[in-house]
């Protein structure tokens, strides 16, 4: 008989974590309620129709384009052999390392009428002045869709490729023996099977797109997120901004629900016990070249150009003025904050997911959903919601400490960086939870039962049975959280201690001053750090074959869950 004791502590930690994530959102509700409805008349009349349409067009455009790029590249790489395929296999993931605000800036410069590309074109066609010939401006909806898609498609590629490699082999062989051609197999067998994976990838892309303020604002696309921001800043109307943000959050929750619905059939897919690698079809001659070009283009646009640009700018800056002396401290600050946040996020996520595993009832499941909610809240909004929570805790502790010990603790959270860590954990917990959930789903529950009948406590089962098997999932989740923390800007900017800079805040401070070359080093370091998880994902894949790779992809694919 299995005792059910020992689950309590997990549930308490899970409840505490959910509460911690929910608190800033609750604070937003309070803020929103303190406002009036005056704002809405104007907003509904002049802002929301356009902002909603822009957001919809942007989401649709980015969604379609990333689906096309991601699925197409995944199918080429998974089911074909062509020159460079082994390199593209991992290189297609590289754009994941480039933050959207960086790609927007780089391309404005590269494609500007006075930039290098149009300069060369004018020289080739013999036109002197940009007044006589120039390409359409990148600062447009189409430009925004293209640039966001160029760095976000890897989410779709990652989830879909794993699906193609895992499930399709047997069914595709069957289809082939029935005499179907390659194209027909793709549309009739592989694509329908991969649909849940594509949906997962796209929903991640859409969440990232919704969260983006930097790129859209920079490219002059007024989305709902940008509207929230201007309502707060320009109108000094925080309650109004909170109302808008909450309305948006409802939309996001709907997107997430849709994604879960699309994923409901995954169990069937995951049950493949002995995945067999797909037999690759060799593409020869011009078809092979064409496939290489098709895979090379997104890597070129999404990674090579931005990386080359940043390296070039960094070299120019270092030649001109050397490495900024503050850089080392900023790197240390960034790594320290991100590392602690990653540890906390992974530990908390483990507790929340394990609470579900040991007692999959309504409450633990609810805790997991709530704990994952932070990923759907834009960073700026979350940070504003966090402020009253953090200072409230500080005030309470300070009052008690002063009364009992006669020591004032002051602003110990804001002053120590703990506030930033809180923000990171609340925002990115979903990523680690997704990874760990996926990892657990590959461990048969009968293992738990066996260990428990042998007398192991719930804690010991986790420690001795699960953790060794969860290592890849934990590593994937931790890396993704770490990189997202490094890139995070708005919450870091608002909640960091006095005189404390990270790579992202340094980058921002220089960028808005227009000293972009000074910002290039910080940007380059952020991109380099972003390559880490790509390398690890690839190595995990190379060592353990498609099954393990699919597991890693699964970790990412459940982020939004």
């Amino acid at each position, binding site marked *: 008989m299995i005792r059910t004791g020992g689950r309590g502590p997990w549930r308490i930690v899970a409840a505490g974590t959910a509460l911690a994530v929910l608190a800033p959102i609750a604070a937003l509700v309070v803020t929103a309620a303190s406002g009036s409805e005056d704002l809405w008349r104007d907003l509904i009349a*002049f802002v929301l129709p356009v902002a909603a349409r822009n957001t919809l067009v942007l989401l649709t455009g980015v969604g379609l384009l990333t689906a096309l790029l991601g699925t197409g590249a995944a199918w080429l790489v998974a089911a074909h052999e062509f020159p460079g395929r082994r390199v593209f296999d991992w290189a297609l993931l590289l754009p994941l390392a480039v933050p959207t605000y960086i790609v927007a800036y780089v391309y404005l410069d590269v494609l500007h009428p*006075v930039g290098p590309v149009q300069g060369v074109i004018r020289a080739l066609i013999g036109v002197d002045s940009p007044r006589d010939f120039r390409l359409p*401006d990148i*600062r447009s909806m189409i430009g925004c869709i293209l640039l966001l898609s160029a760095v976000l498609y890897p989410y779709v590629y990652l989830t879909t490729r794993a699906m193609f490699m895992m499930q399709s082999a047997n069914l595709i062989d069957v289809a082939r023996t029935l005499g179907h051609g390659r194209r027909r197999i793709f549309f009739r067998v592989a694509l329908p099977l991969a649909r849940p994976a594509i949906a997962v990838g796209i929903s991640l892309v859409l969440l990232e797109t919704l969260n983006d303020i930097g790129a859209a604002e920079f490219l*002059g696309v007024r989305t709902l997120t940008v509207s929230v921001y201007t309502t707060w800043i320009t109108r000094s109307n925080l309650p109004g901004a909170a109302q808008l943000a909450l309305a948006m959050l409802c939309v996001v929750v709907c997107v997430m629900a849709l994604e879960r619905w699309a994923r409901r059939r995954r169990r069937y897919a995951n049950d493949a016990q002995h995945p067999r690698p797909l037999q690759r079809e060799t593409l020869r001659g011009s078809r092979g070249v064409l496939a290489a070009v098709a895979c090379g283009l997104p890597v070129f646009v999404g990674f090579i150009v931005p990386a080359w640009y940043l390296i070039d700018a960094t070299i120019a800056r270092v030649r001109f003025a050397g490495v900024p002396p503050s850089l080392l401290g900023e790197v240390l600050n960034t790594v320290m904050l991100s590392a602690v946040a990653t540890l906390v996020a992974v530990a908390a996520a483990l507790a929340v997911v394990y609470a579900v595993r040991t007692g999959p009832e309504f409450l633990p499941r609810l805790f997991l959903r709530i704990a994952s909610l932070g990923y759907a809240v834009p960073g700026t909004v979350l940070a504003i919601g966090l402020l009253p929570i953090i200072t409230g805790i500080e005030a309470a502790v300070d009052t008690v400490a002063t009364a009992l010990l006669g020591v004032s603790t002051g602003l110990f959270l804001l002053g120590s960086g703990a506030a930033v860590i809180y923000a990171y954990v609340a925002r990115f917990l979903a990523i680690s939870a997704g990874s760990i959930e996926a990892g657990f789903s590959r461990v048969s529950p009968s293992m738990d039962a066996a260990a428990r009948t042998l007398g192991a406590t719930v804690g010991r089962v986790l420690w001795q049975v699960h953790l060794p098997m969860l290592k890849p999932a934990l590593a994937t989740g931790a890396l993704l959280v770490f990189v997202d923390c490094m890139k995070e800007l708005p919450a870091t900017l608002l909640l960091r201690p006095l005189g404390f800079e990270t790579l992202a805040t340094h980058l921002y*401070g220089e960028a808005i001053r227009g000293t972009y070359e000074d910002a290039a080093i910080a940007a380059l370091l952020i991109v380099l750090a972003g390559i880490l998880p790509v390398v690890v994902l690839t190595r995990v894949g190379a060592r353990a074959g498609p099954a393990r790779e699919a597991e890693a992809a699964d970790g990412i694919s459940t982020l939004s869950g």
Partner: protein
Amino acid sequence: MFRKSFYLGSLAVAILATDVASAQEVNLYTTREPGLIQPLLDAFTEKTGIEVNSIFVRDGLAERVAAEGQRSPADVLMTVDFGRLIDLVEQGLTQPTESTVLNAAVPANLRGENGHWFALSMRARVVYADKDLDIDSITYEELADERWRNAFCIRSGQHPYNTAMIGAHLAHHGEAATEAWLSGLKANLGRAATGGDRDVARDIMGGLCEIGVGNSYYVGLMRSGRGGPDQERWGAAIKIILPTFEGGGTHVNISGAAVARYSPNHAEAVRLLEYLVSDAAQKLYAEANFEYPVKQGAPIDPIIAALGRLHVDGASLNDVARHRDTASQLVDRVGFDQ
């Protein structure tokens, strides 16, 4: 368990930090880009021995100080737009400062009642034009003329620099005329209203527009070569006109500062403000940042002086600030940023 030890650790750090903090220091919260203000702060520390701890917060400065409340370590609050400065005052986050030094240095119309705020530097909102254009004077109103159809560039209408300028138009001409003016500007846009002021110069060079609006100090930053060779080329591609309102002058905005309501280092805070309006600091503002000093008789950088004589518009800062909400609404109403 992890969580507990983590908080205890932070607590220890915080207590440690308070112990170390007995040296003379002043804490500065600023919306000013750190690179622009740092030379001034370094000079202050060198002169007085007072350490400056600063935090650059772009958005949410008021929210953070308000949330910190009585425990806030903030001594001096500094912003680069008058609207944001007056927001701080209106939210009760500042305290009155009585200083003969400050009162003597800063003209009465550039400081708040009872010393709730002080302007430290001024910048003019000027016209950048293609250097080959045959004009040497223009009014803000004329920027909406059909002559500039698809040839006008400006950053987001919702940016504080622009809502202040639109606020000044409101102060001069009222709501209906301002809405018509904005519609004209919108129709003239050669590209989306986005980016920064320097992008206006670059876009004029790139042929996207012939004329645009930007702040005066960017001209100095570009033309001095301090922003690198690319920006120097942008600065050379434009000429600068100091525009005026019909029957008025050139719109200026300020960077300014206030002593925080619960400032723990009050004396040091006042000393920092006094230093920032000293001859030495005002000279630095002009030389390092290419701004107009607030102090009478302080020198102006040659690049800025060459732009011509500045006739400051008569609309008061308070009037402009009062109109900024309406300005923001009008920007939405004409779909300026869309």
